[in-house]
């Protein structure tokens, strides 16, 4: 295992060392000590390596991740795993707003709560939140799935495209064009698989499913009040 202490080396040094693994992988196990909330830690990774960050991180930790498995042993700042393409990112604590924003693939697990706009404009990532999510989560969600084991704030799934949303607790309000849908067998299967991948022990039948009503897919004058 390679250990980098961020009080002794810079985030630039760390990221360059991790990026170099994409060219020639010399170490699969990485440990990052004393991150102290610094921004842009372990972003742009492109190798099947594991990175354990022992403490809280600032903005955009694991941004645009590909292939790598990143674990944050603490809270994560804004935009954790933004635009992730593949791999996994696990936050042991809470995540600030815009977690998993625009992410195209991979799995983001937040073991605590996620703040506003979790999964905003998500494009294929799967996100599992063990706690609650804030307002405007999954705004303009295009693809993938958002699983919320707690409650969801206002305007969940506003202007939703094709993301699947599952919520176990209360939804304060649904956003424009987001509706509750039937939980059919294929959805139970999908949710079961998501929970298993995330290592979350929840009963999939206790969840409700939400999706797009697809009424805003094409501009219609009758819908102007919703725009």
């Amino acid at each position, binding site marked *: 295992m390679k250990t980098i202490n961020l009080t002794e080396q810079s*985030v630039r040094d760390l*990221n360059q060392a991790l990026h170099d693994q994409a060219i020639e992988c010399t170490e699969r196990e990485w440990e990052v000590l004393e991150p102290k909330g610094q921004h*842009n830690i372990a*972003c742009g990774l492109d190798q099947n390596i594991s990175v354990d960050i022992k403490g809280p991180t600032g903005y955009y930790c694991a941004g645009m991740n590909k292939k790598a498995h990143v674990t944050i042993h603490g809270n994560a700042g804004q*935009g954790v795993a933004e*635009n992730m393409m593949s791999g996994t990112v696990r936050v042991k604590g809470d995540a600030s*707003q*815009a977690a998993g924003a625009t992410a195209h693939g991979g799995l983001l697990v937040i073991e605590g709560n996620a703040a506003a706009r979790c999964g905003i404009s998500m494009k294929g990532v799967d996100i599992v939140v063990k706690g609650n999510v804030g307002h405007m989560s999954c705004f303009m969600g*295009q693809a993938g799935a958002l699983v919320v084991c707690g409650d969801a704030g206002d305007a969940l799934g506003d202007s939703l*495209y094709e993301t699947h949303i599952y919520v176990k607790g209360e939804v304060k309000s649904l956003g424009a064009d987001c509706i509750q849908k039937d939980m059919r067998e294929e959805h139970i299967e999908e949710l079961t698989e998501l929970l298993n991948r995330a290592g979350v022990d929840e009963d999939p039948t206790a969840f409700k499913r939400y999706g797009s009503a697809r009424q805003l897919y094409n501009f219609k004058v009758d819908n102007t009040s919703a725009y």
Partner: protein
Amino acid sequence: MSEDIKVKDGLRESATFDRNTMTEIRRAAETGIYDIRGFGAKRKLPHFDDLLFLGASMSRYPLEGYREKCNTSVTLGTRYAKKPIVLDIPVTIAGMSFGALSANAKEALGRGASLMGTSTTTGDGGMTPEERGQSSKLVYQYLPSRYGMNPDDLRKADAIEVVLGQGAKPGGGGMLLGQKITDRVAKMRTLPMGVDQRSACRHPDWTGPDDLAIKIQELREITDWQVPIYIKVGATRTYYDVKLAVKAGADVIVVDGMQGGTAATQDVFIEHVGIPTLAAIPQAVRALQEMGMHRKVQLIVSGGIRNGADVAKCMALGADAVAIGTAALIALGCNHPMYDEEFKKIGSAAGFYDDYHEGKDPAGISTQDPELMKRLDPVDGGRRLANYLNVLTLEAQTLARACGKNDLRNLEPEDLVALTVESAAMANVPLAGTSWIPGKGY
């Protein structure tokens, strides 16, 4: 209404409710929807035609037009990037999306730009292999929608342009209507075919200049600080926006005036939001000068650039380079009279066509229709664009030499005068024949 009719019949058209206004009121009453269109502002605005150069005579020494060199190259991104971009000419191609434009059009833009040693720019919708393959220098736009955004393409780019807005619609997002969403466009944007694709008006994961500074650091980290990062803003509060962009860490700032084009947005947006390009440049330059960053953070200006005189005037006002969009499309064949009959069939006319969002462009440029697309040969289109870029450069050099300058970037406001009080005030140069600058005295 012709003057003859007015004189003969004693009819008088209202300046307030002219025929265009009446037509729009009737259209609104019939449809209940605002007008969506492409192109840029069509209203008359103070523009570069309102400025003139003071060529050399007794008090200034001109350069010989055919014998003495006038440098046109410019290096962008010298502030932080390990690999700044060197352009042979100070005219770049502005961001226009694959989706709004056909793949052939994007390829033609890349070919034309490459022939002249300059850059072209992706748009909302990601980078196509055709565009990357034919563009020797390609700027990758980082937009609020993040359609097609991925780190592999990010690392293939020669520069990254973080788009906060554009001149045609500052404060507004984009819209690509379902009729242009083919299977390929849909897949690149991760959305179903035929669905209207709305692009958000602000970025999803940052909300102000302090956040933006961190976002730029992230992009630099992902690309290992190799390439320049631009920030593009639509011209509104340009002085403040430029200062904040510098503070956020931009290598290059792109200011797009309200004459800048778009593929589709509300007409009311195009005509009533933003400020003219002419008014924006001095604001941007003043902001850079006050921060001691003029020429250190490079300034690219766009919005209504048409000829070498416009290029030279932008640079005299302090820009390092200009970007063209609408003019580049016209060079490819947009609105060409050879398609006039077909324009009429879709309710338009050559020279007036602006319904880019409908995807029926007879010239094969702003369309995804496979048959229409074939009308634009990317090799031929690229050659036309290169010719046009060459003329812009030669014209700008001609004017610079006449002002005694051996580098386009040596042109300065002192070389300019204004024809109108408005343009004098906006451009901060004297009214022609006087030493009076409005607001500054004599």
